């Protein structure tokens, strides 16, 4: 979708998508306050499109439910993502898409931290620092070209 004609990772491994969330009796009980859980966060982001393949971040194993942590009381969400290759130039864009999706979907009281899975990328520290800098994220989202690319990653595939 973006980038040149040459794909960085031409033949990625494809993983199976997880099924629908199993609804428990507790979930259906309207009297109970449902806390936001890891699976709910995962469901928000697992269908984000990869910027260069017609595949979701879940299918590329960039996102896994075990790397999503939410604490509803504290209002904190932490997501680790795993770029498909250690020199992936799309890492910041992928992280930004995850961050934007969560910022748009969750109540404003949530603090959203998006990191690269430790050891999974050559520029892990630089990418993490960039994603954690809310001033740079705010400036990036005022860039209409970049915002369009992010929205493409976030749009539902037909």
């Amino acid at each position, binding site marked *: 979708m973006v980038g040149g004609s040459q794909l960085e990772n031409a033949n990625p491994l494809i993983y199976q998508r997880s099924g629908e969330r199993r609804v428990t009796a507790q979930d259906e009980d309207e009297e109970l306050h449902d806390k936001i859980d890891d699976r709910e966060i995962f469901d928000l982001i697992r269908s984000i499109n990869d910027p260069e393949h017609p595949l979701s971040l879940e299918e590329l194993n960039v996102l896994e439910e075990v790397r999503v942590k939410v604490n509803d009381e504290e209002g904190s969400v932490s997501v680790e993502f795993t770029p498909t290759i250690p020199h992936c130039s799309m890492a910041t864009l992928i992280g930004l898409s995850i961050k934007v999706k969560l910022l748009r979907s969750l109540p*404003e*009281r949530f*603090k959203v931290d998006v990191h690269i899975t430790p050891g999974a990328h050559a520029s892990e520290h630089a990418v993490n*620092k960039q994603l*954690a*800098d*809310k*001033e*740079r994220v*705010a*400036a990036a989202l*005022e860039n209409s070209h970049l915002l369009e690319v992010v929205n493409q990653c976030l749009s539902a595939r037909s």
Partner: protein
Amino acid sequence: MKDTLTLLARVTAHPDSHCWFLAWNPSGTLLASCGGDKIIRIWGKEDGNWVCKSVLGDGHQRTVRKVSWSPCGNYLASASFDATTCIWIKKKEEFEVVTTLEGHENEVKSVAWAPSGNLLATCSRDKSVWVWEVDEEEEYECVSVLNSHTQDVKHVVWHPNQELLASASYDDTVKLYREEEDDWVCCATLEGHTSTVWSLAFDQSGEQLATCSDDKTLRIWRQIKAEEEPGGSKKDSSWKCVCTLTGYHTRTIYDVSWSHLTGSLASACGDDAIRIFEEDPGSDPMQPNFSLTAHMPRAHAQDVNCVAWHPKEPGLLASCSDDGDMAFWQYQRPE
């Protein structure tokens, strides 16, 4: 530590947007706020309430990140993500753009007026700090472009009574600059923080500097005056970190304000809290101890972006947040 910080008022300053920064005018009669809605608002107190006196909405195309008043109080400078800095003149209640300073390659992050009122500094994501000179005809000329930082420059602030400029950066350092033979030079680099330095504040004397960082610490630096060298050449004074306040903040510290009236140090944190520290009486200036004297958890519903002590009323503190609100607090120093 109870009841040391009391909420006086909460005002929606930038609805549906982030409120990024606040600045009191030198006499403390007006407060300027700016935000992600590209607007600057000027606030004043009427019958005990904070009311919006002016809306400065036609200067910038993108987020207004910071604002700064001239020492005379007649001008306001605004730094914007649109890569420009606007200079506004105050005419009774209205404000008009006098000039727009262009030159930075991308987002301008901060602006500050020197104590003389003749110099202005701006800094940008383009890694540079620019020094501007203002002449009698209100013409602004860039007199120096300082490229000492290797990353995005977040904040600039002048020494309270000297022409000494300090800048804080995404490269984790703080740099100081002064004029030397008609050119501006970087005269010190303060290393110690392990992540982005977001803001800095001098104490009243200008001998101490407080810095805050993404590494969740506050650091206090002290100027060590250089001795006159034999032969007459003067060495630059150096700055030494004399205190690190660690373990108090749970997320990024976005701003720090040092009261020139009381010496109290306030911090604005990404964990939504405001904290105030005081230097212990009788502590060694070379190894000072600072104690937490106020902690207001959930001071705002989201990240606190700025804290600003009132320049005339001791203990009056203004803060603002990503939730678009600003709040006014009265701080009572514990006995």
